[in-house]
């Protein structure tokens, strides 16, 4: 019982340590939600494309993450962003809450709407394949 009380705080305090999921589990989860097979190719297209629905300063995922997910990106504030590809950064896609927070924020910034489960599955499939 005590363990259950502590767990949420542990997750909040340090998402790097909280191994709540894995890229494979997450991919399966999003694919199941979408009801379709994920496509790395579609994911790459979505990631690289320039969009118009979102905020004008962030037309693409690459604005901050760069076109190479294995390399570090940079926020508009100058702050470095760790690589997105799990092969370059094993901490990626291991904390569901963290992943959902950033999909929520960044899809809104770039697309002006939430991403669908299919889109999340596609992008994750591509990133995990690198």
């Amino acid at each position, binding site marked *: 019982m005590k363990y259950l009380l502590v767990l949420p705080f542990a997750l*909040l*305090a340090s998402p790097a340590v909280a191994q709540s999921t894995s890229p494979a589990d997450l991919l399966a989860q999003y694919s199941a939600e979408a009801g379709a097979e994920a496509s790395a190719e579609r994911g790459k297209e979505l990631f690289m494309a320039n969009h118009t629905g979102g*905020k*004008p*300063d*962030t037309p693409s995922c690459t604005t901050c993450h760069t076109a190479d997910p294995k390399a570090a990106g*940079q*926020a*508009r*504030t*100058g*702050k470095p962003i760790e690589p997105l590809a799990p092969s370059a950064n094993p901490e990626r896609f291991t904390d569901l809450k963290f992943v959902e*927070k950033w999909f*929520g*924020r*960044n899809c*809104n*910034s770039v697309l002006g709407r939430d991403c669908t489960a299919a889109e999340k599955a596609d992008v994750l499939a591509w990133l995990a394949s690198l």
Partner: protein
Amino acid sequence: MTDATSTQFAPQGKQVLVWDIWVRLFHWSLVVSISTAAVTGFVLGAPWIKLHIVSGLLAMALVAARIVWGFLGPTHARFRDFLRPPAAILSHLTGGDTGRHLGHNPAGGLMMLGLMAVVGLLAITGLTGLGGVLRTGPLLSLPYGIGEAGLELHEVLAALLLVMILAHVAAAIFESRRSRENLVRSMVTGTKERRPGDHRGRKVISHPRIALTVIALLAGLTVQVWQRDTGVPERAPVAVLDEIFAEECTACHLAYHPSLLSGAEWQVIMANLDDHFIEDARLDDETNARITEWLIAHDASTAQTRPAHLFANERESPTGSIAETQAWSDLHESLAEETFQHAPVYSKSNCSACHADAETGWFSPFQIKIPKETSK
């Protein structure tokens, strides 16, 4: 010892020592320290504050030593040689005072007193500002308002000192022409030509050992007083950052200290995270509430720092953007706009690129280092 006491026995036309070596060293050291303080204060600004303070304190020490020498030095170094009653000064200025003064004339003597007084007041007001506003030095317990007033007075006095120095230089040139001698050279060599009818002053011998002892005692006392009021001042900005605040907010930017904004401004920022400086930075409700509460509990009203006074509540409609405030622009006006666009600064929001202590909320001028532009 050949000092001013020998003037009485020197034949007319002979070069006699008027300014002893300590008066001359004092004069030219003061020229250097005041020039340094003026250039660093008026022109170079915040990144040079250490040199400004050091040169200002040196000027204060020089004046203190000169005051001691004014009571214990040789004939023309003494106050009683050149400080005259107002009537004598007026008589000198209106031409009623015949004869040349080997030392300072009555008007010059008044200027000496004035210059020393203004340098002393500059030191006091400077330390007042350093204590009340920047919360360091021997007067760090002073209230912020007193410190601010001290700095304003400091600026007025600095301008006044410049005007007085100009008048002093002009008077030296004017007097040199009038009496056909080079007074500036005399302040280097120490000697003047003795002429008939000179006011030679009442000769006295100097007491260098006693003077040195008094100066050493004053210096020791100053060090004692200086070290008394140190440590963390009252109402320092909160030193330990909330864990969740630090983790969530530093994902994108440095941890802006809660004391930089008012609670009302933090509330506006936290209520509009979906459009947070043109980005979506939404948090879940629970996290948002916790961070908001912590920010408000440690907002500008809880801290006595310069940024807390300058930036909080400055805007009519709070956007929370400190870089949009007039105070921010004024403080950064010496920097080129491009500095903020290139590596390694990138953005006006990246305070810590130049302010090493940005995340503490202090923004001490001692911690500023403007980085060189890098290629990326």
